[in-house]
Structures are given as C-alpha cells and as structure tokens.
C-alpha cells in the first residue's frame, strides 16, 4: 500500500506540469478553435532557451520562467498577428489553422535541429538529483518545485480569468464567440492575447520540462500526442477538464509504469484517448458537440 501511495505521489507531482501544458493548449483552442499542433515544439523551444541560459549564464531553469514566459508571450502575439488575420475569413479556417500549426511545428523543429543537433539534452541544476524525504515517502525536488510553480501559475491564470476585464472577455469568447462580439468584445484582440498567454504557458512548461525530462527536437511529437489525450479526456475547450485530465492521466501513467513496466507508460495516454473517443467523446467536462 505504501508503494501504491508513493507511485500516486510521483504521478501527481508530474500531473501539475502536464496540467500547465494542457491548459495552454486548451486556452488557445477554447478561444480560437485552433488545435495548436505546434504547442509541443514551442515548449521545446523554451526548453532550449532555458538550456542556453543555464549553460551560459548559470540562470536557474525554474527562475528562467521569468524570461521564457514574456519572451514566448510576445513571440505568440507576433506569430498570431502575422499568420492568422489573413485566413480568419476563410470558410476553411479550421483546416487551414491545422496545416498552419503543423507547418510551424516542422519549421521550428528544423530550426532547433540545425542549431542544437538531435542529441539528447537536459538541464541539470544541483537539485535535479536530490529528493525530499517525508516519513516513508519521497519526492524528487525538481518535480516538487515544478509542480508548485505550475500550480502557482495556474492559480494566477484562474484569478486573471475570473477577476479582470480581459479575463471576463476571454471566458465569454470561449463560451460563445458570436455573443461576445454582440456585447462589444473585440474578439480579434482577445484572440491575440489568448494566443500569447497560451504560448507563455508553453514557455513556462518548457523551462520546467528541461529539468524533468530529456529532450531533443523531434521529441515534441510525443508531447503533443500526450497533450491531445489529456485535453480530449477532459473535454476539448474546458480548462477545468484539461486540469483534471492531466492529473488523472499522470497518475494512471505512473501506476502503469510501476506495475507493468515503463515501456507500457506511453500506451496509457493513447489507450485513454482511444477509450474516451469511443465511449464518451465529449470528455469529462466537455459540451456535447453540436454547433460547429
């Protein structure tokens, strides 16, 4: 039993970071109906920035969030403004955005491969190999810090969404885009900001990821696949769903990995994706898909 709880603790301590990743993706999907297939590659982009900052200036990878987040926010705003307005009126908007994000992912992956080569990297501050011991349980320091930072950021996002004017506008646009326009929300501006915020969350996730996982440029396909299963389980477009889906699957993956062996771990996500689509396609918190 102790063993079981230990595995659950390890799962939860990764779940916070998965939730951070999934939330960024969901925010972008919810506001713009864009499935941002480039979310994973931008996480890796931030991870490489974090690596550079650590190797060259000894900046702590978790602290470097203060740099990667704003950097990614502005990068997101720039990308959105240059690429999306020209297709927004297209009747094939949805298909085009998927191709656009896909192309973006390929380009960034190529760029990362060019500058950093394909070798496995990770950022190794001193605490990367230390653990906290409490009673019979333990938790790796990096995972604990990572999860605490994730929860802090998600809390800030929650406050932003619930207590600020722009937060109201973002939520309104997610729930009913046409109605948001009717009450005077400039949905183009909200979309730009939401895309920036989603990218900033990808930035934070990338910095945390750089300590917790090894990475190489093509690794982002694996990440985006995992993220898709998290947000489909929670219900596409639901922030609460993304959060819950992330925690559930993180724990499930940890348990599978412990009891069946690590090779089975990736299967957990895809099996969950498959089962959800088969049994409850709208996910845990999602609306039934009726309106386009």
């Amino acid at each position, binding site marked *: 039993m102790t063993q079981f709880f230990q595995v659950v603790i390890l799962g939860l301590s990764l779940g916070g970071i998965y939730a951070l990743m999934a939330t960024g993706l969901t925010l972008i999907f919810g506001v713009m109906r864009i499935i941002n297939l480039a979310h994973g590659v931008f996480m890796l982009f931030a991870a490489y920035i974090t690596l550079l900052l650590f190797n060259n200036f000894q900046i702590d990878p978790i602290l470097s969030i203060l740099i990667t987040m704003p950097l990614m926010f502005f990068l997101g705003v720039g990308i959105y403004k240059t690429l999306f307005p020209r297709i927004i009126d297209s*009747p094939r908007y949805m298909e085009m955005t998927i191709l656009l994000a896909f192309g973006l992912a390929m380009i960034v992956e190529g760029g990362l491969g060019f500058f950093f080569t394909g070798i496995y990297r990770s950022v190794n501050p001193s605490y990367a190999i230390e653990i906290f011991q409490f009673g019979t349980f333990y938790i790796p320091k990096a995972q604990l810090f990572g999860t605490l930072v994730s929860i802090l950021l998600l809390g800030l996002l929650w406050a932003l969404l619930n207590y600020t*004017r722009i937060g*109201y*506008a973002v*939520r*309104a646009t997610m*729930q*009913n885009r*046409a*109605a*948001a*326009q*009717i*009450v*005077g*929300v*400039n949905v183009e501006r909200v979309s730009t900001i939401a895309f920036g915020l989603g990218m900033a969350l990808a930035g934070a996730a990338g910095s945390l990821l750089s300590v917790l996982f090894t990475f190489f440029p093509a690794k982002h396909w694996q990440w985006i696949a995992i993220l898709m299963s998290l947000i489909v389980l929670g219900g596409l477009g639901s922030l609460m769903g993304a959060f819950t889906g992330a925690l559930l699957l993180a724990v499930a993956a940890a348990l599978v990995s412990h009891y069946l062996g690590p090779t089975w771990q990736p299967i957990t996500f895809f099996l969950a994706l498959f089962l959800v689509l088969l049994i409850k396609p709208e996910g845990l918190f999602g609306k039934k898909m009726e309106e386009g």
Partner: protein
Amino acid sequence: MSLLRVENVTAGYGVGPDILAGISFTVEVGKTYCIIGPNGAGKSTLLKTICGLLRPRDGKVVYMGEDISHLRPDQILMRGICLVPQERGLFPDMTVRENLVMGGYIIKDREILEHGINQVFNIFPILKERGSQRAKTLSGGEQQMLAMARALMLKPELLMIDEPSLGLAPKLAREIFDTIRSFKELGMTVLIVEQNARKGLAVSDWGYVLDLGRERFEGKASEILADERIQELYLGKK
C-alpha cells in the same frame, strides 16, 4: 429625423449566395417595428448585418446620419445599437450576474456598471434572485429575460430582438411582449423579428414583410393585421 436607414443592402455568408437581395427601410425614433416572414427569409441575417456581425456586400446602413456599414460590432454597439440574437446569445457557464457584467462590457466605469445592474434587476426581479446561478441552468423564459436584460445594460438607442417568444409557453410569451411594450413607454426604439406575427404586430407600430431576401410589404402594423392577402400568405388563418 430617421434613426436608422438601411439602403439597398445585399448580404450573404462566406462565398454563398445573397441572402438579402437589396433591402431598404427606415426606422424612426421611439417607434416599435416588427419584421415578419417565413423561415429562411433572411430576417436574422438582416439584424446581424445591421449590428455589424455580417458586412453588407452592397448598399449601406446609415445610423444617425453616419455610414456604419464598415464598422466592427463593438464600434456599432458603442453608438447605441444592441441585438438580442435568436439563440439568446448567453454565456452558458457564466452566472446571471456575470452575463450582465458582460452586457456592460464596454462600460469601463465600475460604478456606472453596478448602477446598471441594479436597474435591470429592478425591471426583472427574478434575475436578481437567480444572480449567482449559471445561465445554462435557467428556464427558457428566464434565459430570454436575461438576454433582454443584458442588452438593456447599455440603455441602447435602438434595441433589436430576434424572435423574443421563440420556444416560450403562451403565458411567458405574453410576459415578454408586455416587457417589450414597456420599452416603448420608456421611449426606446425597438425592432423585433417574430414568428408569431400576430403577437409581434400587436405590440408594434409598423410592420415589414420579408420573403426570400426581399421586402414584400410594409405598412402600419394594424393595417397588416387587417390585410386579407397578407393574412393568407404570412399570418395563417385565424
């Protein structure tokens, strides 16, 4: 002076055909108008075009002497035109109160916003009781009231309501029409689209019959109600 003039407007969706095929009409201050016509006639499309959700392909919309055809919806709203859309347009996971806050989204002053919320709570006391309930959990009648209350947050010059009685039991529909009549007493200019043509015309001064994107007839609401031809074509037998 006329408040709104729609001049020869054609409009449609995406690359699709023209849904409005050259519509013209005028709205005078303080009157209530009712647009009737069969399903698919383009009634909702007309309202969407007026408030900027859809750009006219040709012709223009003139409001208080200004051409507003190329303004964004939020800019048109700022000038005093509010729409209550056919699907009510509520934010389902927001509370009643939050929906009203969104109704006053373009009001930046918190005090004016709070004052506005209190005023609409006075008009619709039931909404005050339901203040912290999510919009999607309201009954159909309450949702329609919330949709109208939300539009009232801005004290619009011109209020447009698309199918106010849609899906409501007769008693509730009557309440909604009573409310619309009271708007007129407040001096507001109101434009409604209504399936229930008799009820809609009964609360209006002027009626328009729209069919296949064209205006078929216009006149005093009481005259349209009495016209036998129109009765046969659009109102159904008594």
